[in-house]
């Protein structure tokens, strides 16, 4: 069974929001997408539908503080709580690849699925009045008219730090599975048993490897600067006696 997912590397995410707008851009104009509305686009409190947002957290206190940029989109749970609650069946999880989708034609806009998502991954389109969410660019990733290396979600292609990996987390040999295993990939809010398919890779600190002992070296260049005092050959020497 395939389970497509994103693995997000917090160790390199610089919070640039490339994933945010590339997602918006692809999904607003993609075939069948129907647009992603913006409300007050040029006025007070502009707000719109996005499938993906980057948030920022501070962990710790000055000066021992980390700034954590945190991209968040639908996690495509293996046991998605948003699916069974949908009264119309508009919200569903695909058997073939595990993507959780919304059928916009069936959605009645009751928002119940958004209540039933602990992650806040779903957003209502306030104009079309249907629930929307990350589709893993389902209309891209199987498009054979695209170059094979471009058959990935828009956010993955956009990310300048390649902090977003995409693949099958059920395939133990896939790059995403390897990354999860090797880098301690984790799931969000494991306490609810939703088993998110998307994983996050934690920060990894490189500590200074330098020790003070390394300062003492025989080839210290300062030693090359020692000036020999000029010595006169007229000084007494053993040569005066030794024969």
């Amino acid at each position, binding site marked *: 069974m395939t389970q497509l997912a994103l693995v997000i590397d917090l160790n390199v995410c610089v919070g640039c929001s490339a994933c945010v707008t590339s997602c918006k851009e692809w999904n607003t104009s993609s075939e069948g997408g129907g647009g992603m509305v*913006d409300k007050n686009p040029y006025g*007070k409190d*502009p707000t719109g539908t996005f499938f993906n947002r980057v948030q920022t957290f501070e962990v710790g206190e000055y000066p021992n503080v980390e700034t954590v940029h945190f991209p968040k989109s639908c996690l495509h749970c293996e046991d998605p709580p948003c699916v069974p609650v949908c009264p119309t069946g508009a919200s569903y999880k695909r058997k073939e690849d595990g993507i959780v989708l919304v059928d916009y034609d069936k959605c009645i806009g009751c928002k119940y699925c958004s209540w039933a998502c602990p992650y806040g991954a779903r957003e209502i389109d306030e104009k079309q009045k249907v629930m929307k969410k990350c589709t893993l660019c389902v209309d891209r990733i199987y498009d054979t008219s695209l170059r094979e290396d471009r058959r990935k979600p828009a956010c993955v292609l956009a990310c300048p730090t390649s902090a977003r990996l995409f693949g099958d987390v059920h395939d133990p040999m896939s790059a995403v599975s390897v990354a999860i295993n090797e880098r301690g990939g984790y799931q969000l809010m494991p306490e609810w048993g939703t088993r998110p398919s998307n994983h996050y890779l934690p920060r990894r600190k490189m500590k200074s490897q330098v020790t003070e002992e390394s300062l003492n070296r025989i080839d210290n260049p300062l030693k090359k600067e020692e000036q020999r005092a000029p010595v006169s050959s007229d000084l007494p020497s053993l040569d005066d006696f030794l024969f």
Partner: protein
Amino acid sequence: MTTQTNQATEIKSTTCYMCACRCGINVHLKNGEVKYIEGNPDHPLNKGVICAKGSSGIMKQYSPARLTTPLRRKANATRGEGQFEAITWEEAFDTLETRLRHIRATDPKKFGLFTGRDQMQALTGLFAKQFGTPNYAAHGGFCSVNMAAGMIYTIGGSFWEFGGPDLHHAKLFVMIGTAEDHHSNPLKIELAEFKRNGGRMIAINPVRTGYAAVADEWIPIRPGTDGALLLAITREIIEQGLYDRDFVVNYTNGPELVNLDPNNREYGMFLRFEVPLEEGCFDPQNKLWWDKDLNKPISTHTPGADPFLIGEFKLKDGTPVKPAFQLLRERVESYTAEWAEDITGIPAATIKRLAHEMGITARDQKIELPIAWTDVWGNEHDHVTGNPVAFHAMRGLAAHSNGFQSIRALSILMSLLGTIDRPGGFRHKAPYPRPIPPCPKTGTSPDAVKPNTPLDGMPLGWPADPDDLFVDDAGEPVRIDKGFSWEYPLSVHGLMHNVITNAWRGDPYKLDTLLIFMANMAWNSSMNTTEVRDMLKDKDENGDYKIPFLVVCDAFHSEMTAFADLILPDTTYLERYDVMSMLDRPISEYDGPVDSVRIPILPPTGQCKPFQEVLIELGSRLGFPAFTDAKGKRKFKDYPDFIINFETAPGSGIGFLSGWRGQNGQKTMRGEPNPNQWEQYAKNNCMHHHVMPKSYQYMRNWNEGYLQWAKANGLTRHAEPINIHLYSEVLHKFRRAAQGISHGKQPPERLRKRVERFFDALPFYHEPLENEMINKQDFPLSALTQRPMAMYHSWDSQNAWLRQIHAHNYLHMHPSVGEKYGFEDGDWIWVESTHGRVRCEARYSQSVEPNTVWTWNAIGKASGAWGLEKDANECTRGFLLNHIIGEELPNQAEGEHISNSDPITGQAAWFDVRVKVYKADKKDQGSTFPQFPTQPRYPGMAKPVGKWQTFIGGSGLFKNRFKRGEA
């Protein structure tokens, strides 16, 4: 490249311009409307990635802030009110032609052309030169000229377009200060690779934002004290013997002997064993080392010679001499870590540890690449060595009045570690390295400006000694911005930030016509914004505007446009041809020159016209020699034609584009014009990348193969070695002049002390100038701006998607600041400097040094500007720090004015400002201050969009937006 994927969608390649990064993009079009913009996977710069801004290019293209027709200020309207009437281009050109023809025929310097974040300085500069005015510059003076000058005057190259950190090979990466907006995607790509490969990143910054977020260690530092830190690290590196001696000996002027006889006119100058008849703009190989074995002076780079770096020696005639390195060592002697701790706020132990980590990593983790190369002295090397410690810095270091010397210190530190143009360190990008300083020079006297004659000299240049200054006999400036004068002698990018103030005051003289391209001088591109806005509309006693005629070319409804007498609507980047030229700032890679182009994806909107076409039209009408033939007839049909056929000199074979030159496009770098050059670029991802042989890719300052190649291809004039200036004789020459020792140009008396103080051949630390002039107790905090990665400068508040990410800005500070000054997180506060005050909302943060407050740059907007509604968050809750940053230093003597800039380069000292903060009264809460009358929309702009907008590319909705405009 144009590909048809299906009937509906067409894909075209061009180059992004949502910031100055210049990534390759593929634009998908449906029904003639942009549907999707993606990174071009075949482009060397961004390799398929694209940033938040790039993806939002659609929202720029279809922004309701776009100007679509030439506009003239209504006769009865006052400047700044934004009351315009639409006119035709013919009227606009006629107005300009008449006016400019008269100025050119009488006094060309009465015309000023200053440009913002354009990427066409080669053309705008050419226009200014052909016009004959010295009054030209781009925005570099208020951006990062300290970085360019500080490094180029030291190592012959610099960060940003000119070079960068080699993160592919580096093991330790130190990033100092804010640098997020420069070269952003490539740096992000490399940073990620670096971290994945186990590299260690240290961020030194008062604020932990941007790339500092992913640093392995964050070292908070007080703003403006970077120089102190770098000098203390340098001291520790020297005292511990952690410098790369071989590198310093062979590739820097460290071992060269300096004359220290105080009674000799040559005091402070290098010893020379012969004086060549004519020095080109390079360092002649006529200096001396003190050889260890022979214990006497010897010509530098004598085979087998091993010079002392440390010590003092006496020539036969008794002249005391010391190697430059010894002088550096003495200079940094007092810059102990403990000394720097008090200044920077960084514990001395941390400073020492930093130094040790840099030095030991450089020394013990050496890289050897099996690349054979030959140096200019004929030594053959079978490998290239690298010391894998890389640095990056940009405005954080640069935008201080001590920035030049701080950056000199950084360059010297990088050199001592042996990291210049070596793997894992700093790498040049073509056309760099260039001689120290590079060859171009400005005019040197008022005679350079003559009616109906092109300017004698380059519009901007690189002074090598006082005689290169652009001053009159009294030593006073020829340029309106006082660039290249004794006030800011090495202002190699000009001082755009002082143009309006100087022109308004008539000091050094008044202008007639000021043409501003793509710079928001009535808002975030000016310091002291409120007053600059007043100057723009100020009138003299006759009721005439003090700046008589103001022309603004911009694609958008910026704050600056409201002050124009004439507005010229520019196109967007998707509607025009552009070149990222080798003559300007190309997008070269470490492995060789790269230049690129933009090719229109869409026709111009409304009456929009690319600024390049405006320049070529005007240049042709005014009969500039470069734009007309011998009979005075127009030479170039349009801009694309100009790009193909223009040569730097007749038959030089050097033009704006380096690729596919020669009749059939078979030549690279130089060759005859190729009529099909644009097509070739179009077919090749809109760029040309010449990969040099591996043996030319490193050690280029001293690489015989590379230097000969560069000379043959016109990148440089000389194939001479470019030795690193640990000790800057260039700077010392200005001090000698100030001391009255040297012949030649002398500073005016009032500036002697200033020049003598700051033109030090060795880097030194001084407090930022404004801090020396105010009571710091009254203004206890430093105020900074940082650059959001999703918003470039001021461009994007009109962008429906990006403004959702940054709709307004707060002043961020450590909670202790609020506790101390009596307010809480989220309160409305005043931020007051010696120049004035602004009101904003406070936001607590743990990731900021407690003596610093900061905000995002350029989010705040004037009411109604940029096509936004008058109650947009950018206006009501956004604020601009510029209002309280002076463009001139406070507390000057009566009648004297000096720019709030670096005294060497004229770099605007944005980050020197100090403030106090306090809670706003109840009655003052709820909106930011200052507020300005709402800027109206202009004729030709699209109607307000209303509450909802759903972008679906190809639906035609947006394409029609401007057809339905009010015009």
